[in-house]
């Protein structure tokens, strides 16, 4: 068990008979530093204490972080394996559960081939586990079908960054530099609610005169304080970015030297953006011309600016276009690779960065290697001790896996750290696909909506019951510490994968005794790749408050700012994005005349499987709601608090109306943290981005109805 206590010289309240263990929050990509209070006698978690010395967050936490410890010793924890018998879950021994899994896996694979078992991973867990999920699928099960919930989260950002910059590190700069920036252009990010502790940096900058531009259909708490709020229609980011670049070029704000030296495609971009005049942009985006012009001038004049975006811009059929175009805005201004400027995506899940780097994705191998590249296959096969020919081929994206389940190509599934019947779009379809499986295994520590459908539920340890590392939104690798032993018979996911691997006769490929050994293997597996962790060690993380990848050598300090001299593309130059306007997958029509967009509230995390079990958070936000502008509400004769019905061709739900002027008049907003009949994902569109295969959660056409008494 970790004995890491408070840093010397930092004053914390340490109560008698208690000790503090320094770790990080389990939820979003900010990965706020925190101490967990442990009673030394009982060895139970008793509370939380701020971690003032953590560089990025300085002791600050959002309400999820403050209450996170309450999920550890929670009465709902699953403590023994559950096997479904006659439609009911019955507690069982590990022996029995593993016997069943072994028998079923072998049966299904024997009859339908190895690819008939799929693996569905997640990134709300450590790098060690995320890495092992990829290896588990390919080596223990030998299946090509593996993908993960990051497909719904970071895939468009990854696609866009790879296209323009040649490498996907969520932030090109460390966020401690943000206080020195002069301008933030934030698109599709409800930053204050989704990454609350980042706000302190924006205030620091604002206190020195920095400007904030926010593009969002809603007047979020960040938009409220912005210098310009670009209240765009959902799904029109690409038009906005093209429009801003049109003005940057027109008003000579382009850093010509930088662009000539470091970027390709400028002429093509100029030609493309020529048509995006403020008037045309205003027509597509629904933003007033003056606002677009004002934003372009503020952004253009700022010597140091950071362009930031999140799921609002990424969860679209144009997600990759949007990311590439916003990134190009920063490139035109010559910002990337310089002090206090650059581009960043706000990572949604705790380890959304690290978890996407090491081979949990259908087409990826550790260190951002490609499963389609023979050299990469060979290298990783070597690290894993298998023949390159044994390495499965590329699989399909998360949502497409459900198509394959429907088609009976995938007949068994192992879900690790995810809750896809709440988080996927069009969940009525997804639920049917999962119900149609011959065999479903789910690892979780609470009985999620997905776990309810399982044949076997394996109880896992929470983040506080295991060691490991995560990589925060900046690209900084940090340490998660074991605070207490796993509750009941629960086990960390890596141990579970190891046990199943043994049953599948592949035990010798999984010889780990502790997470550190997995990390050391990951370091070698990622060595030479773009996300190179070779020089990251647990000791170095402690010694220097985290290590930014890439760290390609043992004595390398890490790389806080990337792309200083060149980009990671083949010719070292960034590729400016040339993307024309495309309509969203679905637009309002006579039957469904309004726009629907979804998002988070500050009190809940992802599918709410954890936060919906915390009293304080549920008190604040017990159920989903529909945000409606008063003018729209008046047309439908809807009162505040009244339950309304909303529907799309895929599904319908009712929820109370929350009337506020802080949203566009033609758009409804519903948060997505609830399951079953409370889930807005019954309604959302499964249209996929052609490049990243990201579903279009953020845009679809919807019908609003007043319920008759």
């Amino acid at each position: 068990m970790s004995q890491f206590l408070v840093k010397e010289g930092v004053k914390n309240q340490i109560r008698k008979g208690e000790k503090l263990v320094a770790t990080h929050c389990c939820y979003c990509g900010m990965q706020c530093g925190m101490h967990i209070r442990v009673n030394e006698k009982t060895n139970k978690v008793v509370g939380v204490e701020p971690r003032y010395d953590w560089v990025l967050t300085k002791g600050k936490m959002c309400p999820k972080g403050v209450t996170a410890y309450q999920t550890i010793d929670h009465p709902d924890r699953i403590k023994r394996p559950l096997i479904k018998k006659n439609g009911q879950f019955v507690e069982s021994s590990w022996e029995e559960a593993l016997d069943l899994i072994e028998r079923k896996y072998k049966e299904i694979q024997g009859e339908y081939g190895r690819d008939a078992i799929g693996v569905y991973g997640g990134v709300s867990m450590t790098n060690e586990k995320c890495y092992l999920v990829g290896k588990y699928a390919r080596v223990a099960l030998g299946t090509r079908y593996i993908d993960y919930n990051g497909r719904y989260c970071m895939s468009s950002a990854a696609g866009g960054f790879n296209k323009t910059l040649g490498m996907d590190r969520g932030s090109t700069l460390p966020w401690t530099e943000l206080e020195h920036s002069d301008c933030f252009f934030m698109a599709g990010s409800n930053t204050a609610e989704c990454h609350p502790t980042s706000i302190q940096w924006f205030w620091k900058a604002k206190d020195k005169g920095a400007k904030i531009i926010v593009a969002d259909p809603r007047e979020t708490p960040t938009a409220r304080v912005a210098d310009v709020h670009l209240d765009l229609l959902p799904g029109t980011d690409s038009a906005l970015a093209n429009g801003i670049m049109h003005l940057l070029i027109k008003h000579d704000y382009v850093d010509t030297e930088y662009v000539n030296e470091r970027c390709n495609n400028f002429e093509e971009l100029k030609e493309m953006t020529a048509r995006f005049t403020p008037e045309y942009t205003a027509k597509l985006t629904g933003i007033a011309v003056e606002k677009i012009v004002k934003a372009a001038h503020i952004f253009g004049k700022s010597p140091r600016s950071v362009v930031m975006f999140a799921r609002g811009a990424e969860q679209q059929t144009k997600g990759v276009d949007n990311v590439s175009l916003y990134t190009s805005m920063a490139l035109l201004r010559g910002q990337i690779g310089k002090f206090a400027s650059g581009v960043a995506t706000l990572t949604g899940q705790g380890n959304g960065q690290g978890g996407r780097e090491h081979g949990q994705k259908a087409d990826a191998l550790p260190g951002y290697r490609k499963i389609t590249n023979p050299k990469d296959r060979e290298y990783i096969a070597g690290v894993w001790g298998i023949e390159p020919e044994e390495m499965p081929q590329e699989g399909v994206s998360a949502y497409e896996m459900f198509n394959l389940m429907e088609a009976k190509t995938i007949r068994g599934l192992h879900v690790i750290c995810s809750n896809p019947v709440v988080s996927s779009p069009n969940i009525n379809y997804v639920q049917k696909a999962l119900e149609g499986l011959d065999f479903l295994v789910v690892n979780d520590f609470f009985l999620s909506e997905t776990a309810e459908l399982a044949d076997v539920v394996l109880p896992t340890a929470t983040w506080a019951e295991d060691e490991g590392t995560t990589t925060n939104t900046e690209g900084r690798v940090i340490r998660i510490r074991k605070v207490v032993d796993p509750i009941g018979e629960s086990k960390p996911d890596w141990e579970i994968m190891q046990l199943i691997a043994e049953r599948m006769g592949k035990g010798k490929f999984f010889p780990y005794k502790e997470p550190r050994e997995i990390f050391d293997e990951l370091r070698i597996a990622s060595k030479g790749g773009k996300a190179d962790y070779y020089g990251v060690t647990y000791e170095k993380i402690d010694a220097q408050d985290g290590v930014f990848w890439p760290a390609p050598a043992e004595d390398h300090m890490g790389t806080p700012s990337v792309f200083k001299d060149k980009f990671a593309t083949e010719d070292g130059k960034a590729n400016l994005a040339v993307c024309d306007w495309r309509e969203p997958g679905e637009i309002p029509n006579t039957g469904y005349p309004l726009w629907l967009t979804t998002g988070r509230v500050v009190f809940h995390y992802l599918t709410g499987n954890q936060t919906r079990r915390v009293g304080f958070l549920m008190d604040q936000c017990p159920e989903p709601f529909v945000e409606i502008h008063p003018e729209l509400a008046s047309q439908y004769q809807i009162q505040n608090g009244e339950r309304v019905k909303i529907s799309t061709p895929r599904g319908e739900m009712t929820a109370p109306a929350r009337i506020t002027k802080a949203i566009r008049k033609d758009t409804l907003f519903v948060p997505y943290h609830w399951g079953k009949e409370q889930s807005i994902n019954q309604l959302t569109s499964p249209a996929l981005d052609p490049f990243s295969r990201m579903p279009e959660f953020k845009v679809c056409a919807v019908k609003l109805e007043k319920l008759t008494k």
Partner: protein
Amino acid sequence: MNKIMYLEFERCIGCRACQAACRECGDHDAKERNYVEYVDFTESRQTFPMLCMQCKDPACARVCPANAIQITEEGVVLSAMEEKCIGCRNCTFGCPFGIPKFDFEKNKMYKCDMCYDRTREGISPMCASVCPSDAIRFIDFDEMQELRRRRTQMNLIEGKKPQEGNKWDYVPEFFGVYTDSNQ
């Protein structure tokens, strides 16, 4: 020690981390003592935090017939003493800011004590520690004065002038002076 609670209402993002954290403080019995309210949700998402002003001459203590509300030497107005509080709830009505809360199960009042357990040791109160948006801060008196001057200066740079309707935007309010040694 000479520290004060410094609030900047317009920074509040309504996350209520301050309330979740208040429950975590020493003898707070998992009950929060602070408030976060919307100004008017129909108009905007603006919220604001509210905590005890630690008044110099606290109405709650003055109206308490049992003398149950103690004021520490640092000027912190504590929750009612368990053995003295008779549960009459005068304090909850007496406070002009509506700060004291009442625990009907235990039949006693409880309120913000500036996390006396912590601040006594010079450690920031829970709400000010966690507030992700720096809407609540626990800072030196001098730093506070500097911040107020800075605010005026920023307004000068931006060419803004306070008017009747928005003067709150110009003078950040502070309260809860922890000691009066600087008065």
